[in-house]
């Protein structure tokens, strides 16, 4: 028996104890500060749990009823059309794709049915005599989803475009990378400080640029239609550099020989991009997409600091509603229940994304 294999055997039996030791600090902290809060929030969500008295009363589902319930519902075909029409289009695309024999027909059928169900469900809303138990929750949910749906494609597409532009050797390119990445290191309060004044109609640079084109200055942050898009623009400026760096790393992992082979076969730039670059970036794309969506659903700082959720509640998001219900209004049980709903939403969306990408691999 050789010495090396004896050592290996000894080390294998000794590894478990060593591993326990090495994993200890991380696992203890992760259990206490990542896993336990999730369990605790799930538990607290079933109680009327007041922050000041610190007492848990009335075990039950009342928090979820308050959050999700309402009365006096009616159904109309035109309610929330801006959401339902795109969903219908997606359902149609999936259906047509399945009929042409792409993907698994059974799964496509389920997806189409779920989408159609959602389109029908979105037609329900409280009628003239009815109301949601907590209209602010629905407003916050709607704005959170809107923020995510608007910002994610922008952050993905612009990040990729920037990566393609700056992924070249040389000093200049590294300067561009630095410039595009720099805003990412700024604290949220500094970012919002700058942008609140950039958007200011009488003192900001935006107003002076738009008035040069003869457009009256607009108070973006005090407009219920423009507040969220304005915050999205700020967010893109602040964080897109991070995605750019991820995409640059992904681009550099692609085998250069693939491009050579393609150009020998007479493939153009567009074809190379579609057939080599995009498939090669699949993993990074997935990473960016998942982290982006997890982060967007938890958006808080920049919106809270720039608009306080206003004007009215027109840019209220879920985390702000949780923060105000729990800390300001002392209703820890209700805030926990909303955290759990947010967690479920994020997990569901992440898993759908993972699933979708995996299926494409096969």
């Amino acid at each position, binding site marked *: 028996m050789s010495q090396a294999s004896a050592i290996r055997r000894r080390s294998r039996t000794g590894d478990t104890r060593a591993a326990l030791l090495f994993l200890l600090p991380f696992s203890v902290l*992760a259990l206490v500060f990542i896993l336990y809060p999730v369990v605790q929030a799930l538990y607290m969500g079933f109680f009327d749990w007041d922050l000041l008295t610190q007492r848990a009363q009335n075990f039950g589902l009342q928090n979820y009823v308050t959050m999700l319930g309402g009365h006096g519902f009616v159904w109309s075909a035109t309610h929330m059309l801006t959401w339902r029409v795109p969903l219908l289009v997606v359902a149609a695309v999936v259906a047509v794709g399945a009929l042409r024999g792409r993907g698994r027909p059974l799964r496509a059928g389920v997806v189409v049915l779920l989408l159609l169900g959602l389109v029908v469900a979105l037609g329900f809303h409280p009628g003239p005599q009815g109301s949601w138990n907590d209209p602010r929750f629905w407003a916050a949910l709607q704005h959170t989803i809107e923020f995510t749906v608007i910002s994610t494609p922008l952050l993905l597409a612009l990040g990729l475009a920037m990566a393609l532009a700056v992924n070249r050797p040389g000093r200049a390119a590294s300067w561009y990378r630095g410039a595009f990445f720099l805003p990412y290191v700024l604290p949220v*309060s500094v970012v919002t400080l700058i942008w609140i004044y950039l958007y200011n109609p009488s003192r900001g640079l935006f107003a002076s640029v738009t008035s040069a084109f003869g457009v009256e200055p607009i108070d973006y942050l005090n407009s219920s239609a423009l507040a969220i898009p304005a915050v999205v623009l700020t967010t893109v400026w602040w964080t897109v550099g991070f995605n750019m*760096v991820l995409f640059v790393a992904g681009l*550099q992992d692609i085998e250069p020989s693939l491009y050579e082979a393609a150009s020998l076969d007479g493939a153009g730039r567009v074809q190379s991009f579609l057939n080599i670059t995009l498939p090669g970036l699949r993993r990074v794309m997935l990473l960016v997409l998942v982290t982006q969506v997890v982060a967007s659903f938890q958006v808080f700082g920049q919106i809270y600091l720039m608009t306080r959720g206003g004007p009215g509640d027109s840019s209220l998001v879920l985390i702000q509603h949780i923060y105000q219900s729990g800390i300001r209004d002392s209703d*820890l049980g209700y805030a*926990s229940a909303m955290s759990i709903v947010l967690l479920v939403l994020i997990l569901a969306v992440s898993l759908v994304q993972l699933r979708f990408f995996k299926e494409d691999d096969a």
Partner: protein
Amino acid sequence: MSTAPAPTITERTTREDATPRRSRTARRFTIGASMLHLFLGVAAIVWLVPVIWMFVLATSDNDLLQLDSQTLLPQGFTLQNLIGELSNSELPRWFLNSLIVTGVTTIGTVVCSAMAGYAFGRLDFRFKEPLFIVTLAGLMVPREAMFIPLYLMFSSAGQLNTYPAMFLPRIALPLGVFIMTQFFRAVPRELEEAARIDGAGHRRIFTRIMLPLARPAIAALAIFAFVQSWNDYLWPLVVATQPDYYTLTVGLAQQQASFEAARSLGDLMSRGVIGSLPLIVVFLLFQRQLVRGISLASGEK
């Protein structure tokens, strides 16, 4: 990254175009390339305009800014705002708070991630795969959103307005473990085998061989954790109820709302400069490590 870029399409075309036969295409490519550089240069400057504007306003006279702030030239250049804000009673205290919280968080994150990464990357033990998958699943837990139970935990222990309350929940970072695992997995076996024959245990191998090897990954992770922690907003906002325990990020945010702030734009932007200067310095010094760290995170999954 900037020192050893992988070959790209551009690099290859320029190499091919260097042959005299293709001089015409070469010229077209050079014009195209300089157009691209012009475009990127302008885009990069425009991208930085908000930051430049902050510096300009911070070094402008407050009263002159009342007349005109829509400019990229300092109005009556002065350092008075910056000096005034630095001698302000609260800013230095918040700066110190941020430094302590960020310092402990960064060191803790690096130590915990490196240790766990060594276990996942180099050791054989039961339930290794499931444990690693659970750790990866931790990436999907919205940590920001779970502040209510954490708040209850610290408030019922009477630990609000303390430093541990601010850094303890931020140390365990699944992404950090992932980065370090990726790194340790790639270390060749021979390096370790030699030490093992000499009778070194895991602790020795970890501290004497693995940690020195992992210096680039550790630097990257440390900078990443530093930026994240310095910029953390929601958790310190929740857990620090007294201004004495605000971090700089929270403190700056609290001051934005006040009315007199709106009248002294120069002072306000000076606070922004002071709050972001440490990060800009860190960024300029360690740009390469930071970029590499983020790239490591994008590695194989």
